[in-house]
């Protein structure tokens, strides 16, 4: 997941500007907070490292910017951080496969240990936290399933696919905890599709 080196490569900038323009248009249409003095961040040269993640390859870029959270007004102050895509590395991938077959055989403690190994290798990979949330659901541990799903959401919020997967795990956890209204509200979020 070494994706956060600053990027000034041409395709990245093109995407960034495209996104900015899209956002600006969007806000022109529905928002009165437009302040033309605001401009995108991500300056061309930096003296200190920048945590803004690398822009996605053009092919991976979403056609429309991800919708801003409902609570906050969309403003043109900055482009949304470009999406990240998460993958498991070959080591964690093989461990997740192993955990799946353990779950299929009903060996839940074994699966937990296997996922724990994977987490030790990639502790910040949201996909592993989704796996862990799924395992906790299988174990009927709604509380930990909820925590793990929320953790996955926090880590992987910028990857639409990961976000929606984590969201569905969270919905299942909330249902297990008999918190139906929250589950429904979450399911209605546009990014859950």
């Amino acid at each position, binding site marked *: 997941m070494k994706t*956060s080196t600053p990027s000034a490569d041409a395709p990245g900038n093109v995407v960034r500007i495209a996104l*900015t323009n899209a956002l600006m248009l969007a806000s022109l249409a529905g928002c009165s*907070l437009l*302040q*033309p*003095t*605001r*401009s995108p*961040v991500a*300056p*061309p*040269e*930096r*003296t*200190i*490292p*920048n*945590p*803004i993640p690398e822009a996605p390859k053009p092919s991976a870029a979403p056609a429309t910017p*991800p919708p*801003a*959270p409902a*609570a*906050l*007004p969309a*403003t043109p*102050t*900055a482009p*949304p*951080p470009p999406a*990240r895509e998460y993958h498991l*590395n*070959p*080591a964690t*991938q*093989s*461990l997740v496969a192993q955990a799946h077959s353990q779950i299929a055989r009903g060996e839940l*403690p*074994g699966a*937990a*240990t*296997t996922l*724990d*190994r994977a*987490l*030790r*290798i990639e*502790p*910040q990979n949201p996909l592993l936290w989704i796996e*862990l949330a799924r395992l906790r659901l299988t174990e009927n541990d709604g509380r*930990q399933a909820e*925590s*793990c799903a*929320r*953790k996955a959401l*926090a*880590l*992987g*919020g*910028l990857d639409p696919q990961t976000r929606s997967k984590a969201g569905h795990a969270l919905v299942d956890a909330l249902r297990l905890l008999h918190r139906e209204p929250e589950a429904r509200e979450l399911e209605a979020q546009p990014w859950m599709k």
Partner: protein
Amino acid sequence: MTTRSWLKAIPTPSTRLLLVITGIIGLSILGFIGWVIYLDRVITNEFQGRLWSVPARVYAAPLELYVGAPTTADDLDMELRRLHYQPGDPATGPGFFRRRNGDFELHARRVQFIDELRPATRITLHANAEGITGLSAADGSDVPVFRLDPLMVGSVFPIHGEDRIILTPAEVSPQLRAALKTIEDRRFDDHHGVDPRSIVRAVWANLRAGRIAQGGSTLTQQLVKNYFLNDAQTFGRKLKEAVMAMRLEARFSKEEILVAYINEVSLGQDGQRAIHGFGLGAEFYFGKPLSELDIGEQALLIGLVRGPSFYDPVRHPDRAKARRNLVLQELASTNVISEEEAKRASAKPLLVRSRGGGYFPAFMDLVRRHLKRDYAEADLSAAGLSIYTTLDPKAQSSAEQALSRGLARLNAARRDKSALLEGAVVVAEPQSGDVLAVVGGRDFGREEFNRALDARRSIGSLVKPAVYLSALETGRYTAASVLLDAPLELKLGDGTLWAPQNYTREEFGSVSMVHALAESMNLATVRMGLDVGVEHVADTLVKLGLDRRPALNPSLLLGAVEMTPLEVVQMYTALANGGFKARLHAVRAVLDDQGKPLKSFKVEVEAVASPELVYQVDRMMVQVTQRGTGRGVTAKLGSKILVPAKTGTSQDTRDSWFAGFTGSHLAVVWVGFDDNRSTGLTGALGALPIWADTLGSLRPSSWEPAPPPEVEERWIEFSTGLVTGPSCSNDAVIVAVPRGANLPTKPGCAAALMRAGIE
């Protein structure tokens, strides 16, 4: 019939007397037999209890190898040797490896992991100066992930917490047996527990010398004596000891008794803890397993049996050396070793303590406490358990070395040598809550006061991230908010006046929030904290994991709350982990002697603070190491690695703290005096270099989580908090603020920023 009338029935007085005497003798014999039976019971129970209470073996976390793992070729080489793999042809069998540059052919041993028993396996590993580059099985196929054997780091009786390194008969070399018998009990193989000949010889020698020069005790008698630790030299006790020794010999084999002796005999004292047995003795004095001691080192241990404190090699090196050489001489004269070997060993220095071995008392202390916390006592009393811990031997030795180097440097620089600075380090993996390393003091090889777990000290400015998080939670502050760093006086509840000051006694005036945190400004923090509410800050501390409610004084805003280094680590997990508290644990699993887990392990996380607010605090904490009081970290690790951190200095510089995290490690360092006197050190001067030294050798990854969708990163001017850009200000830093936050722009910068955006 009364006694009198019964006596009257006996004809003559002389017969009466005879009967009475016979009766008394008979009763005495019966009494003696009863006593012997009683002693037999006592000693048999004791011996069997010890013999069968096989201690639990404790293992470090196994090293996981996969493409991209940060284990360099040299690291791998060192790890294999630490696990006692020998260079050689791997075809010879398990336990051998061959290295050619970065290519390793390994014949891994059969090994029990938490989740599987892996048979002996051959594997080829490729590594370079960065890490692992490839793994392949014997048939050439790729192996995605492979773990090395977990390092055995000790044995423990989980219930009473005594730690031993218990040796099985197979682990006791014939040479050690022969040497021990030569020095302590030459007729061991022939006597029945007591050796009349050696007693006579001892009495004779003592009479001639006019003092007690020799003891006539056999190994068996010594073993009995060790069980009932009582040094009184009374006749009654000697008799008891002799009877018990004979009963032991009647019931158990010579082999069992000799091995029990080797595991039991006292070899010294380490603070409150007695060093029992040769296994622990080897680790304690030499930092390596008994099997790796040379004959001179073994001779030193054997020599200690006669008087562990009298011959203490640390306090009385001359005596200990003379004793060792005498033992070597005896061994040569009885042909256990050659004259040549004795001569060579006698010429060697006394104590070469090669650390890096597997003895980590401060970590083991945490393991014992977590076992007590998480497992039922009844489960832990079973024999032959295996305890799998989260210990990372590399992190542990990095932390030990960094602390010992750092404190040596700080102590050397002090003019007042009346007391030595102490310290503690705890390293954890923040996402899972795995505790990787614990160092409890300067002399980390000794078990003593474990400062990492038990020293509750004032945390000073380490509290500030919690204050700033509380401020963001009110919704009234962002990293770009302007705070006032100016003097203030407060009337406290008890009527006294409180006038906090900055450490440097300066006042900074109007500053950005990120600047106030980075430079650890007290006045700005107190003013903001009072606005937020001391109670809110106390709530935040409890939420982040403090297990008690701190006193609600305004001085709480400057860290007037006492915590142990471990508690600080627990509190910082939520900061290092996007608002999720990860419950710290040192034990991953306990397996019974069949390899079955006692209970399944769970990583436990709990959402305790909003991820987007924690991200904003962390982003400010990055400036602590980029431009603030923690700049020394960047000097050591380079500015490429982002490290959110905080320095801490308590009142009168009694405590010097540094807490911070990277993408892979969370570490807290404390430096101070045990008697709480002033150190003259800020967090940056005392604890920071030790922190950076610890992390420096662990190849830390940068802190770089994806920003939550609700926040955006903006350039602001460090001093004023106004929106700017590097093209418009040479004082620009990146902060995270709520997406769409309406921030004022630096005058004259708007056009430049617009241009930069359009270009």
